[in-house]
């Protein structure tokens, strides 16, 4: 297999998997096996590709030529492969978790659920590997459409209303602004192919840059920049595996991934640095970080609290990009990775609590740590990563972003990161405290009257395995961040701080 062949395979594998899932719809065990096999194959192909990228290869594959000079192109580069790796690893774990969750909760339309999941992953691969803005846009829209049935999965009135908000915000922003910006870019520069110097560099300057930047940034609704964030809390009506993989990882990361892509490869750091007032994006990101955290403080519903936390954390990535320093860009890319692992752990835990104890509110979680020690242990690790303390991976990305902010003298960014850290602690640590240090109340206590005696009652095993794995990954990434870190530094062209020995190590691992 050559790297060029691997590219279309990464797109075809999940689609083919989806078709097989439909074919096996009547046999749940077979169907779930197909999901797992597909997820593993996708990961293996991505892993096969990774060492090539680490060695500096940039494989490319033209899918189809739509119009003269305008083709659908797949191209793997460090940024894309980071995203593809994260998504494909977490799909495996999430599939395991889904099996436990969907069966235990007796959800309907499970075939449609697994099909849409596979198609969503295909769209994510398309976004990650897009070689030009048009390809990225097409898969970006596809991702919106295939995740809609997942959001409305419950079929209730509330779910449908949420589905409308979801589609409404994402489609209006992308068609109204992003598409306009894209066609504008095309008519100005005659190309949409991403380039390290930026497509627009040398074609526009001054206020025009600002207009285009605004169209792009508010056109990427999936990045949940305020005021375009409302779809994300709305999407929480979906079953928890959807919230976990799609609305903590795939969909939202597709958003911030696109932000990084556009800032780096459409505008280019030099162009934005040379344009005065282009730092408005930084202020919007700062505003979103703080405001979303404050809202999260007041949410009693656990999943909604996590959703607002996601809104806030996504803007860290935008902030990292908006600081416009290479080192903060590394932080942005790293944050895509570490937030994915941390947040999926938190959602897994929330889903496990719901499945085992049918609790959704923070105020109901007193003493739950004693009943579900694994779950809440994992939750604690995820929470610490959100706050950004060592030894969790969340520390790394914050560190790089802070470093970039200090280098460029953006003191406001420094202040915001510090305040946000405190706010994160303020809304996560009380949950941990409740879970472990308060005694359980209410009828969840199935063992008797004495509060000290509790039978451990965890969610089904696949779910526990899944959330423990992601929690472990969050810790491991702190100690072994080489692969994503190398890729991120390759992307920004900063001095390669990691020796080539690490690359070889990575190659042997895969």
């Amino acid at each position, binding site marked *: 297999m050559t790297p060029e062949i691997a590219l279309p395979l990464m797109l075809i594998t999940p689609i083919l998997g989806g078709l097989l899932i439909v074919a096996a719809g009547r046999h749940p065990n077979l169907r779930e096996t197909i999901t797992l096999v597909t997820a593993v194959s996708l990961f293996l192909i991505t892993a096969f590709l990774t060492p090539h990228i680490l060695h500096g290869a940039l494989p490319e594959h033209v899918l*189809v030529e*739509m119009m*003269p000079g305008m083709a659908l192109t797949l191209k793997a580069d460090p940024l894309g492969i980071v995203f593809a790796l994260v998504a494909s690893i977490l799909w495996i774990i999430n599939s395991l978790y889904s099996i436990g969750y969907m069966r235990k909760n007796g959800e309907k339309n499970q075939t449609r659920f697994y099909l849409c999941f596979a198609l969503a992953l295909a769209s994510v691969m398309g976004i990650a590997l897009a070689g030009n803005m048009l390809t990225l*846009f*097409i898969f970006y829209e596809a991702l919106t459409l295939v995740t809609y049935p997942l959001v409305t999965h419950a079929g209730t009135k509330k779910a449908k209303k949420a589905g409308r908000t979801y589609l409404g915000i994402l*489609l209006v922003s992308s*068609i109204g602004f992003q598409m306009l910006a894209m066609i*504008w870019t095309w*008519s100005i520069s005659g190309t949409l192919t991403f380039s390290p110097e930026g497509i627009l560099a040398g074609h526009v300057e001054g206020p025009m840059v600002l207009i285009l930047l605004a169209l792009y940034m508010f056109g990427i609704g999936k990045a949940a920049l305020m005021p375009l964030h409302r779809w994300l809390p709305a999407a929480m009506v979906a079953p928890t595996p959807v919230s976990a993989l799609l609305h903590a990882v795939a969909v939202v990361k597709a958003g911030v991934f696109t932000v990084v892509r556009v800032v780096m490869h459409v505008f280019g750091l030099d162009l934005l640095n040379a344009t005065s007032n282009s730092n408005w994006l930084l202020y919007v990101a700062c505003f979103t970080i703080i405001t979303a955290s404050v809202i999260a403080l007041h949410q009693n519903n656990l999943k909604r609290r996590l959703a607002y936390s996601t809104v806030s954390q996504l803007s860290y990535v935008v902030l990292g990009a908006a600081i416009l320093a290479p080192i903060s860009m590394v932080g942005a890319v790293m944050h895509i990775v570490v937030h994915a692992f941390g947040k999926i752990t938190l959602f897994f835990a929330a889903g496990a609590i719901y499945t085992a104890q049918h609790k959704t509110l923070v105020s109901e979680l007193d003493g739950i740590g004693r009943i579900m020690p694994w779950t809440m242990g994992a939750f604690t690790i995820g929470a610490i990563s959100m706050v950004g303390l060592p030894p969790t991976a969340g520390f790394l990305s914050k560190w790089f972003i802070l470093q970039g902010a200090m280098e460029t003298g953006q003191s406001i960014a420094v202040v915001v990161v510090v305040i946000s850290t405190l706010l994160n602690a303020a809304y996560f640590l009380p949950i941990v405290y409740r879970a472990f240090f308060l005694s359980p109340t209410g009828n969840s206590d199935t063992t008797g009257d004495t509060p000290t005696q509790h039978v451990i009652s965890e969610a089904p095993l696949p779910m526990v395995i899944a959330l423990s794995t992601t929690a472990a990954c969050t810790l491991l990434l702190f100690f072994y961040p080489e692969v994503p870190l190398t890729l991120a530094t390759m992307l920004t062209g900063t001095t390669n701080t990691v020796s080539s020995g690490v690359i070889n190590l990575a190659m042997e691992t895969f």
Partner: protein
Amino acid sequence: MTAHLPVLQVVLPLMAAPLCVVIRQLTLVRLFSLVVTGTAFLISATLLYQVNTAGPISYAIGNWPAPYGIEYRIDLLNAVLLFIISLIGFLVLIYSKNSIAREITQNRLYLFHSLYLLCMTGLLGMVITGDVFNLFVFLEITALSSYALIAMGGGRLGNPQALYAAFRYLILGTLGGTFYIIGVGLMYMMTGALNMADLARLLPSVFDTTTIQAALGFLVVGITLKMALFPLHMWQAAAYARAPSTVSSFLAATATKVAVYVQLRMIFTVFGQIPLFRDTPLDEILIVLALSSMIIGSLSAVYQKDMRRMLAFSSLAQIGYIVLGIGLNNATALSASIVHLFNHALMKSALFMALGAVFMSTHSVKRGAMRGLGRNMPITMAAFVVAGLSLIGVPLTSGFISKWLLVQGALESGMWPVALMILVSSLLSIIYIWKVVEAAYFKKPKRALPKARDPGPTMWVPMWILAAASIWFGVDAGTTVGIANKVAETLLGGVPQ
């Protein structure tokens, strides 16, 4: 034989129409008209190929040379239109069998075929002729036959409003035709010519006169009425909603397109030597009317409960896109218009066909009646969704290509608010298409739909050919855009800037 293809293109269906009345026996009539439309399709495909490779064809009827006789002149633009008309004509006729059997009175079915062929003759003739008066004759043939076709909707399933809709169309359509012929008369008065090429040569010297300027005004208004552009669109919704499904599928895809063609011909060929867009406010007028059509059409479509009316209002918006491309006056935008002429014909016809199938099994085209149909009629509703996505302009559908070029054209003219309006109109189209999707796939039917199921292959095969083509020309748009670019360059080439 190939030398006579241009005249055969028109004469074949023209002769076949009365023969249908003579044959009368339904199966034979159907077979006969299928053979005729199929042949017409092959002829148009051959002509398109010839024109695309070897350049324009001129054919003198009865060997009378141009200024005295009637000239048929085929360049790439009308070759494309001929292809659209005969392709849709052929596919819709295949589709028609079961649909008309349900909607039209049994003893008038042979008449339907006769009128259908006449209508097609008229449309083909309007497009192929190089003579402005001859064009009027064909325009009237089209108009008269389509009034009767629409009125046939009053048949079997009892839809008396069809007669009213047809009558209203008759009044307004006649007005349009009259305006057109007044314009032609004024031009003849000043130049003594009816041949388009002659007119193009003679008009510049007399363009300063009020007579010719009035002629231009009459022509534009008359044609605008025929293509149902705002504010002259009032006849369209009722006509499409009340006509038999087959007729709506055919007319919605072809009739307004031909009117757009006539507009293009007038602006870029007959008045081609005069810089209309520089010397008259025609471009501003077209842009304003087009934008109003887009927004009003899409907004009205959102509020329709009758799905055929919804599609008719959506047509208003889509014609708006096409006219906008003409008014923007640059090669990219004009090319967008021409691509969209073709793309819209495909998708709109597919949508009406899907609705026809829904009407057959549920006896209603209200949105409420489509609840839960995604399960009962998967083939039909999937075709509706695919064509609907193309209408919205979702990437990888043909509608996306049209919108892309149009937005690009607007930006090239420096009119970014116009570009924004195009996108706003697309967003509105998401709403009305999505309402149908929600009803069909996410709502449960109010009562059980045991009888609602997909129609037979004579209906779904043509429907899916068009729906699949909407995808095909969205993924591989090289051919369509290539031809459209050529046409746009030729048209603009005649205008001194």
